[in-house]
């Protein structure tokens, strides 16, 4: 790390502070270049991507364990807090797993593999900036980098109409949402004369045009609400998820959602705090907390009820991802009403932890679904899972485990995740938030119906047609092992992961306060 040399050029340009992002971007570029010269390769770009992601993880830990002073790097446009580290870890994990899951699919469908990997890495860079940006411009750049890559990834199966439809729908509706987001940012800038989150938080009590804050806040809420697929901005999700190739769906349900949450949390929880005596700010805070609480309830209800009605496993998982965004929102709202900064950070970590548990479970489930689905994802109906229980014991038992973790059964990751996100909301003692947690618990009970249905179908239904167990390739086996260990590990040793999430360099703590 050539810190000193770089700082001589310009004290504010601090590449070290964004080293993880840089590594992933470089890896993406390398993959793209390599692909130009060797388009037929099957392994190399995947390996480069994995190495890049692992190096980025190492760099992230190195940055956090070292005693760097980044307070003024990039003029405060990059954040250094537990929000960044926790969400970045989730994203790097999701990307690495997605690369491993995709190997089956890229071979089966004959997709341009180098292109796919570079898009995935660029999407990852975008996501990472959505977690690390401390400036709305950076957040927007990250979001667009991510979105453009995922639009293409959704349509990567060029010959398939459904895939094309999925990409186009995602693109049109995504642009629509981006417009809201950008306009919201502009309005906030108009009110506070700043795009920096820390500065916005400082100036918000004495904003020039307080009414603009509310309009801007609403616009931002709509834009982010679309990205994390909350009701009523969720309508795109099922179609896009179903049409996109299965590994891409797995990625979209876990990665971009986590990134959306990271930016959403940063702007609303850190950027729009309660300021004593400032009416506008308190209106803003009150209305976003209550609006999000209502949206969380709607999201959970719609997601779960709609999931019950599905006959396609991928579509069921799509609606379940909507429901899980609702559960994570419960923790979000809890972070919003936290009284102390420790409680707030704790709630943010809880949301990150929840998204990690969801990512682990979701990637595992999609890994099995990818393997079982044949060309063009034909075999993804519930009927296609009839009676495979004892014919493919490894796959069906792991898939059952993931369903139980989705459901939130004790000893699995989902259970601890739910406890952690529900905790802050229930402790605030506000009636609306208590109602929200009650709804969340009832929805969890409802979700048992469709999660257990898959298990029932696998183990207790007769299979009428011939079926042979697919061979589990080594990459997918790796994913299954990691995710199964993850489901149990997070369920039993949650404190270990949370202690990593809590890590925050002292310098940044001071900066945040």
């Amino acid at each position, binding site marked *: 790390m050539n810190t000193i040399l770089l700082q001589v050029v310009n004290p504010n340009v601090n590449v070290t502070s964004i080293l993880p992002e840089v590594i992933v971007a470089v890896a993406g570029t390398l993959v793209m270049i390599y692909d130009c010269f060797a388009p037929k390769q099957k392994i190399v770009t995947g390996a480069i991507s994995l190495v890049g992601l692992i190096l980025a993880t190492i760099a992230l830990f190195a940055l956090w364990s070292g005693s760097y002073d980044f307070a003024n790097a990039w003029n405060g446009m990059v954040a250094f807090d537990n929000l960044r580290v926790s969400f970045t870890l989730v994203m790097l994990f999701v990307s690495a797993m997605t690369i491993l899951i995709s190997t089956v699919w890229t071979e089966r469908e004959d997709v341009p593999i180098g292109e796919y990997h570079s898009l995935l890495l660029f999407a990852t860079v975008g996501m990472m900036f959505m977690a690390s940006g401390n400036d709305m411009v950076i957040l927007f750049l990250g979001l667009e980098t991510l979105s453009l890559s995922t639009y293409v990834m959704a349509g990567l199966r060029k010959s398939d109409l459904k895939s094309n439809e999925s990409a186009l729908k995602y693109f049109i509706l995504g642009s629509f949402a981006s417009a809201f987001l950008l306009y919201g940012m502009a309005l906030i800038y108009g009110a506070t004369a700043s795009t920096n989150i820390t500065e916005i938080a400082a100036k918000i009590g004495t904003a020039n045009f307080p009414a603009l804050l509310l309009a801007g806040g609403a616009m931002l809420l709509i834009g982010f609400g679309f990205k994390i697929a909350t009701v*009523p901005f969720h309508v795109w999700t099922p179609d896009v998820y179903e049409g996109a190739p299965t590994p891409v769906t797995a990625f979209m349900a876990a990665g971009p959602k986590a990134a959306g949450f990271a930016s959403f949390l940063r702007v609303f929880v850190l950027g729009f705090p309660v300021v004593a005596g400032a009416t506008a700010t308190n*209106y803003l805070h009150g209305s976003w907390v209550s*609006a999000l609480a209502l949206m969380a309830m709607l999201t959970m209800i719609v997601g779960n009820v709609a999931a*019950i009605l599905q006959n396609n496993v991928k579509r069921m998982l799509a609606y379940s991802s909507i429901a899980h965004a609702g559960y994570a929102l419960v923790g979000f709202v809890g972070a919003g009403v936290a009284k102390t900064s420790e409680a707030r950070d704790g709630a943010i970590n809880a949301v990150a932890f929840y998204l990690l548990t969801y990512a682990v479970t979701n990637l595992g489930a999609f890994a099995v679904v990818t393997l079982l689905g044949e060309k063009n994802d034909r075999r993804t109906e519930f009927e296609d899972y009839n009676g495979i229980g004892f014919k493919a014991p490894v796959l069906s038992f792991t898939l059952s485990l993931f369903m139980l973790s989705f459901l939130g059964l004790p000893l699995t990751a989902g259970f601890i995740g739910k406890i952690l996100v529900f905790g802050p909301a229930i402790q605030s003692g506000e009636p609306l938030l208590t109602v929200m947690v009650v709804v969340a618990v009832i929805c969890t009970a409802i979700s048992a119906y469709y999660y257990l249905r898959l298990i029932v179908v696998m183990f207790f239904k007769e299979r009428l047609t011939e079926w042979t167990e697919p061979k589990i390739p080594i990459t997918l086996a790796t994913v299954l092992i990691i995710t199964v260990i993850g489901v149990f590990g997070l369920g039993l040793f949650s*404190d270990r992961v949370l202690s990593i999430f809590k890590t925050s360099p002292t310098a940044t703590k001071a900066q945040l306060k």
Partner: protein
Amino acid sequence: MTENNLLSLIIFAPLFGAALNWVVGGKLKNELFSGAVACGTIAVSCIVAFYIAFFADGGAMFADKPTLDHLWTWIQVGNFRADFGLGMDHLSAIYACFITFVGLLIHIFATGYMHGDSGFYRFFAYLNLFMFSMLTLILADNFLLMFVGWEGVGLCSYLLIGYYIKKDEARVAAKKAFVANRIGDWGVIMGVFLLFTLTGSISFYDKVVDGEKVNSALNIASAMSADPFTWGAIVAGGLTSVAVLLFIGATGKSAQIPLFVWLPDAMAGPTPVSALIHAATMVTAGVYMVVRCNGIYQNAPTAMFIVAIIGCATAIFAATIGLAQNDIKKVLAYSTVSQLGYMFLACGVGAFVAAIFHVMTHAFFKALLFLGSGSVIHGMHHEQDMRKMGNLKKYMPITFITMMTGWLAICGIPIWAGFFSKDEILYKTFATHASASQATLFGQPVNMILWVFGLITAVMTAVYMTRMMWMTFFGNERFHDEADVHAYAEHGHDDDHVHDSHDDDDEEEHHHALQHDFKPHESPWTMTAPLVILAVLSTLGGLVGIPYAMSSIFGAGDVNKFEHILEPVIAKKGEHEAEKKEAKHFFQAAQPAKEKAGEHSETKTEKAGESKTAEHAEHSPEEIWTEQKLAGLSVLLAGLGIFIGWFMFKDNPLRKMPKLLENKWYIDEIYNKFIIDPITNFSRKGLWQGFDLGVIDGIVHGVGQFVTAIGSIARSFQVGFVRSYAAFILLGALIVLGYFIYYGLKLVG
């Protein structure tokens, strides 16, 4: 607070064994490997348990503070904290030692008993998993982890009862055990929830974790003021409610009225399982929990009263059924239920030490009797009906002699272990100071009624055990009379045990129809060696807890080690006048003289500190004399019971027993008719056909049709989906914007 990381080895060694047997053993299918892994890991547990209990840091069994091992923080949300931490205090040290030791012997026995079974590795994997769960249960340092073990033993019990999965009987029994235990588990978890809301903690011990102080829920509960002795206290949501809920769990796990029905059926499992799980260890988990929570129970007189009554009722009820059973294992099963009743009786009258003492001695002699019966069954080629046995002493001398010691122990003949513990319970019932038991019923003090029933049970125990021994080992050889027994069964004399033996046909590897030249044979050394060791323990094991009243006869002074070890575990509670008044009030009359005596000795107990002189003061000459008198009476009654048994069954071992007892008071039939059938019918007619098919499917199909209809309309108008999605989003956006702008207008206006 002593930390000792070896503690986790006790529980994880069996877990490792289970995993190894499941993964590797399943591939190898080598009996030597599976047996060695299973026994080896338990041996490791056993050695470590004894090392920590007696030697490490002065021995957990003697130290003032429990030995703790904090592995990791499991859940921490707000002020709720559950650690994955183990703790060994005096109580769990005693449990850990006898469980690992008896467990080891039973594992060794099982390698002989299960020889030739195709599921050998599976059996030992389950058995090791059971040991892991059981040790987790007793070594857990908080209620939640204890509950993990509690559920774990329930699961293993289910798996092992249903081990012979081809037998209908085993499957049904496994299901029954599972359901009965589930009802109890509901009680435990509710009790723990309530205790947490009352005390804000679920830890057993005061401890410091990561610099944070964790308070013991039990100490807090013990320091609370006692609940009044009224029925209303049960539903008041205080400590009495906690105690009653926990006791519901105990009735499930430890087979007490009304949830005892599963235990006799559980005998469908292999005999070593019956010995290990359904006699020596798991079924005493309920007693463990009650004693562990003695601080709660002492503040809940109503709960104590219920525990004592249920315990005593179970003891005598099960004994009556035991009199009339013909299956050797069923006799022992009902005997176990009855003995567990004794333990709860002891808890209910406040004699927690005596309860644990009986748990331990019972583990020795009941494991011995079960393993002995296993040896008999093995020697008889899986014949369990005692009517087809007889004169086995000639063929199986070691089994015979060892079982004789078990018989003497359970009957309560002096020197043998059962005598000291059972006598202690009866004496403590007679002389109890617990306020609840001093209330009167039908003009008699309750503890007197309990005591009389206890004595009657003791006589019956001797009778049915003598009957069992006589039918099995004495008299004439009946194993060639098969035809007669069949005729007996076919002539309308309904007897399901005979059918049981027919069902055995499913385990083809084992069952051979008894040939005419059949001779029972003695079992291999792997089976007889554990019998001999357990026989020695059944004979001498009671000597650690000789009451002062007995030892003083020989001038040996106070040698009751057992009681002194457990004393610190039992919360000391001064008797409250208020409680007493309540008790009086409740049952209208009380015996003034009795009460005075109670107070008198209570003050003495309070004074009795750790010093020797004070201890001696505790044993007043009158008390010792009473105890000696009562002990003499017990011995007489045991002798009487044996005589009755001998007299009745000597010449006529197949004597017809009352049909009511043989059919277990028709309890199963009553449960079926009044509880299970209504539930089944409601589930089938109401929930399945009504709610599931009607409502849920109706909604699903209805919504499906609705969506399809909308879809077809939409298609007919050729509406672009993206546009409608965008419109939907816009609508939502407008609502959100409106909501925010409503506040914005307030600012401007």
